[in-house]
């Protein structure tokens, strides 16, 4: 057999791997703390975390409202752990962690994000863990193989600029979006698991495949604008008047903006798609004890209240979101909800991607010259 450069490298890598395997026992016991259920669990975790002394979190939570307060609160509780966090979109987190694992230079200890779990599961890059705090979460929001637990809920709706579209005249149902008067006025996010793809998957689940395909064929005539950027930025653009309507946005974003005085409203269309973020531990984690302490903290009342204060939707039963978010929380506002499990989201992904490519990928950005006088107030 001809030895190629790669196979020579393979031998070299193999040699290193053997050496690494020889030192495996130490890592195995570190990993087993992740599922340890003994009575002295907490003591063991603290002892181990003292030795580790560090923790790196990759999360998609907003920095100033949620991620930093969580990190600070955790650091206060365990001052011997130096906490480092990195905020990225769920997609970027998945990319980075997969690449880090591939290159054998894993940095992250805890992962948190929306739409992250199935990719990590399929890539066999996360490991099971257990914590007594998870019992406070309803069973359907936990993975049956213990690879993730829900970290937050997200509900999606349509944001609309109330200066351009006065309250009351906005589209109220998915069918309303097909009205020709919205042509060229609707933007949605691409490059995210919870953007266009989730919209498509939700409609497929709600209407059935056949009706859904007919719906998308009609919707594609509306010239949807493909926006590649964060969800928050898209909503900001709606506030600025750049796009009158944005569908499939996190419903709490316009609520927060409206509270600051922006003329923006949110319309929940039924069924309201909902997903949960997940919290996971990557395979080969370096600071396993610190990671578990953090997950415990996150799922504790203290952690969940940080989430609540930051206007996220807590996952622990008994902790409701803030009052101003009641109108967009389906179970509190009597709205029909379509909870899309991570596995389902993942299963429908390929089909939804195909639909997107077929009907929406090459939609051009349309600039519409409005005949009606509705001058955008620049001042």
């Amino acid at each position, binding site marked *: 057999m001809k030895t190629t450069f790669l196979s020579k490298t393979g031998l070299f890598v193999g040699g290193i791997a053997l050496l690494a395997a020889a030192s495996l026992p130490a890592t195995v016991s570190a990993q087993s703390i992740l599922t340890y259920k003994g009575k002295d669990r907490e003591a063991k975790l603290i002892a181990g975390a003292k030795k580790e002394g560090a923790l790196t979190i990759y999360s998609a939570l907003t920095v100033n409202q949620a991620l930093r307060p969580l990190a600070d609160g955790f650091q206060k509780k365990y001052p011997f752990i130096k906490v480092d966090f990195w905020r990225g979109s769920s997609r970027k987190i*998945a990319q980075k962690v*997969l690449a880090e694992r*591939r*290159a054998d230079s894993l940095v992250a200890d805890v992962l948190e994000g929306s739409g992250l779990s199935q990719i990590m599961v399929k890539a066999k890059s996360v490991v099971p863990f257990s914590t007594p705090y998870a019992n406070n979460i309803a069973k359907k929001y936990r993975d049956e193989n213990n690879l993730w637990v829900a970290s937050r809920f997200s509900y999606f709706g349509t944001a609309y600029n109330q200066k351009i579209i006065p309250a009351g005249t906005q589209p109220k149902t998915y069918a309303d979006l097909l009205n020709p008067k919205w042509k060229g006025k609707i933007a949605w996010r691409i490059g995210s698991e919870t953007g266009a793809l989730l919209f498509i998957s939700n409609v497929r689940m709600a209407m059935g495949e056949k009706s859904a395909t007919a719906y998308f064929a009609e919707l594609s005539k509306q010239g949807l604008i493909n926006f590649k*950027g964060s969800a928050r930025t898209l909503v900001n653009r709606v506030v*600025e008047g750049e796009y009158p309507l944005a569908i499939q946005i996190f419903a709490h974003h316009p609520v927060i903006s409206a509270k600051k005085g922006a003329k923006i409203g949110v319309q929940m269309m039924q069924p309201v798609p909902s997903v949960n973020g997940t919290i996971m531990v990557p395979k080969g984690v370096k600071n396993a004890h610190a990671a578990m302490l953090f997950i415990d903290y996150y799922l504790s009342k203290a952690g969940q209240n940080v989430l609540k204060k930051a206007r996220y939707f807590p996952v622990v039963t008994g902790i409701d979101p803030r009052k101003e978010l009641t109108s967009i929380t389906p179970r509190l506002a009597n709205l029909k909800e379509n909870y899309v499990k991570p596995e389902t989201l993942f299963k429908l992904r390929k089909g939804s991607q195909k639909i997107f490519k077929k009907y929406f990928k090459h939609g051009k950005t349309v600039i519409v*010259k*409005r005949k009606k006088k509705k*001058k955008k107030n*620049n001042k």
Partner: protein
Amino acid sequence: MTTPNRSVSNGLLLGARLRNLFSVSPIVVVLASILLVLIAPAVIFLFQSSLHETQFDGSFGAFTFQYYVDLLTSDQFLTNLINATIYAVGSAAVAISIGVLLAWIVERTNTPGGGWVLIISIISLGIPSVLYTISFLMLLGKVGPANEILMWITGAEDPLLNVYSLWGMIIIEGIEFAPLSYLLLSSVFRSNDASFEEASMMSGAGILQTFRNITLRLAQPAILALLILIFIRAFESFETPALVGLPGNVSVITTDIYESIDEVPANYGQAGAFSVVLLFIVGGLLVWYNRLSRNAERFQTITGKGFRPRVMDLGKWRWLTGAILALLFMIIIGFPIGIVLWVSMVPYYDGVSLEAVKLFTFDNYRTVFNSRSFHDSIGNTVIMGAAAASIVAPFTALCAWLTVRRYKGAWILDQLATSPLIFPAIVMGVAFLQVFLNLPFGLYGTLLSIILASMVRYLPYGMRYSYAGILQIHTELEEASSMSGARQTTTFLRIVMPLVAPAMVTCWLFVFLVSVKAVSIPILLAGPKSQVVAITLFDMWENGITNELAAMGVTWTGFMTIISLIFYMLAKRYGLSVR
């Protein structure tokens, strides 16, 4: 010519014979091996990644041609190729038009204010390309001053310009290449013989007619070569297509490469196939370009005694050309810097208006200066640039010396060190990404990985400076040293290095400046702990943190402009090319 002293000539012959006797010098072997180790794995992994199925976890699977088949049979590829071609041709046309105008006005006419043009070159070397592109997006965007003025003039209700389009890309990239175009054309115009133009004027032709029929015609070969060079650079560029094209759904090959890697899971196979195809296209174009401009660049040394041709007296028309000069200056430097300064001083960007002046604040600067992640980013960038430059400068000095002194086999060093030129930056990023993912050194996501990739990328630039510097040194100085009994190493260290020091310092500064501007390499390699300024700015734009971006950009550009100024002063002092 004086007859050389017999003993000296004997000594020379002996030295030459000795060198040939020992065939390839060990130093050449060592350097060549280092270069091979740095460059070869990247090339190999790049090809491998395109020929093997990408598994879910990123590893290589079965051998397959599928990625190439998919690529060559896809409509999308053809569209993007056409987009890239139109974009590149357009940018080159815009850049050359501006460059010709600028060069002619400054070099061949008595227009006042020609010296200001140097400021354009200095600042454009210092400003990060991300920031420069973003500044035009602010100027030409929906709420920007360009649209405001147009709407005011035409009375339109909606913004008329959509900068996120192919034409937007062409204009912005064209303006971005204008300084380079000016630099290259100015040396052409400067060395033109004025007698042709004088003959034309004396025969009764007007200024414009002379310009069109004589000046331009004489400069045609240079313009053609420049056209191709800018075409190539635009074709392989990434920043402008990513920031301007992608939001408008206009894709080119380089953005396709990036998007393939941006998928989850990353489609390394597709990225690899795109990269290889782009590599061949760009390689072919470069071969053609080299043939056209043979000997034009390599021997650029002290410009020496070339006399300045007589400039044309435009009479009262020089005020018009002066105005044009001022306008071009504003377009290339004034407006971009101005808008970034503006945005850095307001809490949110909603267009340029008198009311907004009341909101002026230094808050954005305060945030930037107080933020730890900004400090980290700037620190990382300085380290990266300094490290890359510190390795490239002496390394290429040594390679250039061995090559110029015709050590046996040293031509290989020249070839190897110049070979990274055919790699578009994004392709080099992909190649090195594969290296760091597949080799077990734990380098992925580290600053060192960016330093290594940047080093390789800027080797050719280093070579050019070092080569020019070494050519300036006459061999007799080294021969005198050998005659006095010094070994080769001593001669190199104590005679050559001090003499080539100015060229090396200039080289160091140049490599530092261009490596910190780059986006295409760090965007694929940077991890959370190795963020650099160009990527921080890129991310901030995508996340809508515009005002802080502007503050950071202004601060960073300020520092880089100072370094760029030092570079220009040194280059002028020692007569080195600033390209």
